[in-house]
């Protein structure tokens, strides 16, 4: 249902766009007949990550872009998260990408490489004065704007209503203890293979739990960043994580993308999983009324657990030969119209003024938790930590498989510290 809605919104937007262009187009043609020639044969390469931009949004932006810049083509490529670091590095060095989506935890790292164009001058034009300051933080390094915040999102529990009814559960849990009890019930329900599908290396959930326990995965110690897995908060969070993971048959040494948990859920034997909006089954795979969402509960009923605030920024490659086109594209993509469309698909937009447009069951579950969201340290070297093999993932797999927490935490704190200290 959600996707249909998005599609409908997209189509509507396009119709409006087309209708509006009747008058606009003439003006454009008259005013910039010379400019139009300039764009002829130019192609703007834009990279978006798998699962980010709904198809209708892409189509709408593309139409709008090619209308505003007659003759220019927008070539949208969808990239997989797996091994993206190396791919982005290559593309930035070659100039084979003009505009790209970069994860919020990675932006500072790429800004420091000199591969991203400085957008400070264009900020106001892109609507930057209205960007929510906390969302913009990750796009800024040393006072310069290296990207534009695009959207934020966080993980919620996605559950199979049919199985929950079958297990005799009436309402979604409000506290962790209730959640455990529900999972216990699901475990004993025939037809349930995984009460909760939670692969052992799903470090985003662990990150949220650490935050919830009042801790941090890395901390600043005498001016330098070090790993903080050894802290009591991280250890307490791990206990929760381990307890949740014990309701899962998912591999302890894999993450949520191998295999894609979104392809497993529609098979109908998973009670619940922790995922993003795009990972929820499409209506063709599972009827929308069978799928429910709730935020991962906290220790008490008054607030849900903290979460990892995922998000993406849009950046322009320094090596791009189409800087103007790229900025023009950003202006379209970040316009209230298209940000609103993203909001309608359940993502949190970059301006608080658009928050009212956030709709959908997923977003209703996601928004309350986002208030307790946290991000990774905004330092250039954080990207090193997320490089494969990611030490946090390795740590989780080892600890879940019976390794001694304290010695593992020490070992991987060292590794995290080493990576955070690496020079560029």
């Amino acid at each position, binding site marked *: 249902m959600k996707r249909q809605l998005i599609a409908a919104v997209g189509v509507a937007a396009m119709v409006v766009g087309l209708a509006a262009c009747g008058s606009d187009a003439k003006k454009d043609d008259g005013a910039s007949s010379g400019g139009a020639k300039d764009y002829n044969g130019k192609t703007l390469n834009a990279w978006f990550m798998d699962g980010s931009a709904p198809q209708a949004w892409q189509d709408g932006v593309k139409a709008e872009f090619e209308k505003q810049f007659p003759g220019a083509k927008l070539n949208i*490529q*969808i*990239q*997989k998260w*797996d*091994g993206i670091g*190396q*791919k982005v590095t*290559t593309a930035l*060095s*070659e100039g*084979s990408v003009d505009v790209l989506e970069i994860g919020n935890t990675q932006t500072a790292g790429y800004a420091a490489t000199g591969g991203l164009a400085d957008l400070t001058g264009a900020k106001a034009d892109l609507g930057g004065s209205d960007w929510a300051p906390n969302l913009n933080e990750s796009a800024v390094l040393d006072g310069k704007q290296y990207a534009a915040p695009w959207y934020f999102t966080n993980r919620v529990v996605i559950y199979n209503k049919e199985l929950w009814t079958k297990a005799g559960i009436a309402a979604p849990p409000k506290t962790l203890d209730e959640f455990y009890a529900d999972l216990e019930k699901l475990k004993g329900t025939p037809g349930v293979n995984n009460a909760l599908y939670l692969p052992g290396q799903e470090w985003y959930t662990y990150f949220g739990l650490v935050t919830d326990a009042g801790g941090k995965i890395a901390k600043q110690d005498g001016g330098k960043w070090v790993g903080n897995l050894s802290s009591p908060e991280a250890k307490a969070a791990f206990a929760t994580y381990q307890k949740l993971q014990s309701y899962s048959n998912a591999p302890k040494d*894999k993450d949520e*993308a*191998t*295999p*894609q948990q979104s*392809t*497993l859920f529609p098979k109908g034997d998973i009670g619940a999983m922790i995922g993003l909006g795009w990972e929820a089954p499409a209506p063709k795979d599972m009827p929308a009324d069978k799928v429910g969402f709730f935020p991962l509960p906290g220790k008490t009923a008054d607030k849900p657990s903290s979460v990892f605030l995922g998000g993406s920024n849009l950046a322009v490659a320094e090596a791009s030969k189409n800087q103007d086109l790229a900025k023009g594209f950003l202006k379209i993509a970040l316009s209230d119209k298209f940000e609103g469309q993203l909001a309608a698909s359940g993502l949190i937009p970059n301006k608080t003024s658009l928050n009212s447009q956030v709709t959908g069951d997923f977003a209703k579950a996601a928004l309350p938790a986002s208030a307790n969201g946290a991000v990774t340290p905004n330092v250039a070297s954080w990207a090193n930590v997320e490089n494969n093999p990611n030490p946090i993932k390795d740590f989780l797999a080892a600890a879940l498989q019976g390794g001694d927490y304290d010695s593992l935490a020490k070992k991987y704190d060292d590794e995290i510290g080493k990576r955070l200290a690496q020079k560029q």
Partner: protein
Amino acid sequence: MRRSLIGRTWPNVIAVVLALFFLFPVYWMVSTAFKPDRDIISRTPVFLPLDGTLDHFDRAVHADQFWTMVGNSFTVTVCAVLASLAIATLASFAIARMKFRGRKAFVLIVMAAQMAPWEVMTISIYMITRDSGMLNSLVPLTIFYMMMVLPFTIWTLRGFIAAVPKELEESAMVDGCTRTQAFVRVVFPLLAPGLMSTSLFGFITAWNEYPLVLILNKQTGEGTAQTLPLWLTSFQSTFGNDWGATMAASTLFAVPVLIVFLFLQRKAVGGMTAGAVKG
């Protein structure tokens, strides 16, 4: 010389066990590919896919860009092998039939090149390819695959050429052929089996190559320059527990090689002793 019944039986028993050990993974791949899901996701393995299904093949073949990658793999492999045959025929004729200064050095270089550590040269090849703006293209792949199989091709062809009696060539020249004509008309036809078995191993090497394409051709989607080994590994990680489709994919990838190998193996094994290769 008389052996007891047991003495005559045990080698056969061991041979059967060994043959099963070597065959089983291949059999398991093919049979899993044909089994319906309920027989795959089953606590008791089903050994014979009696109610076979083609569903998995259907899924594998319809995976993203499958046919593009099939085309890429064939193009790269065939071009690399043909190019290396052409270059190698010239060089191997020289070292098999001619004496010249530096011959021994050349032979040593060929032998050393055969063991070149391609696996750890990916970084420099990546830099070279990027600097020439050739990433995500079939051209560098073809060129480097050609080089990977070239030393072996020279080395084996040398053996085949040496096996053709010199007298034959010389008599052709007595009959008025030039040396080139003698080579083309007399030696070359006799080399056909050698060329075939040599190209077989070149084919396998290029078909199998994984680290280089993994680094050079990252681009997926429309117009990708990736080859089948990448398709298979990414298929496996995305569809991690869809073993039916993954095994169907493996089967599709392996079958061309298995067939070619069986078909040519008699000649191939003879050629093997001349040089060293690994599938």
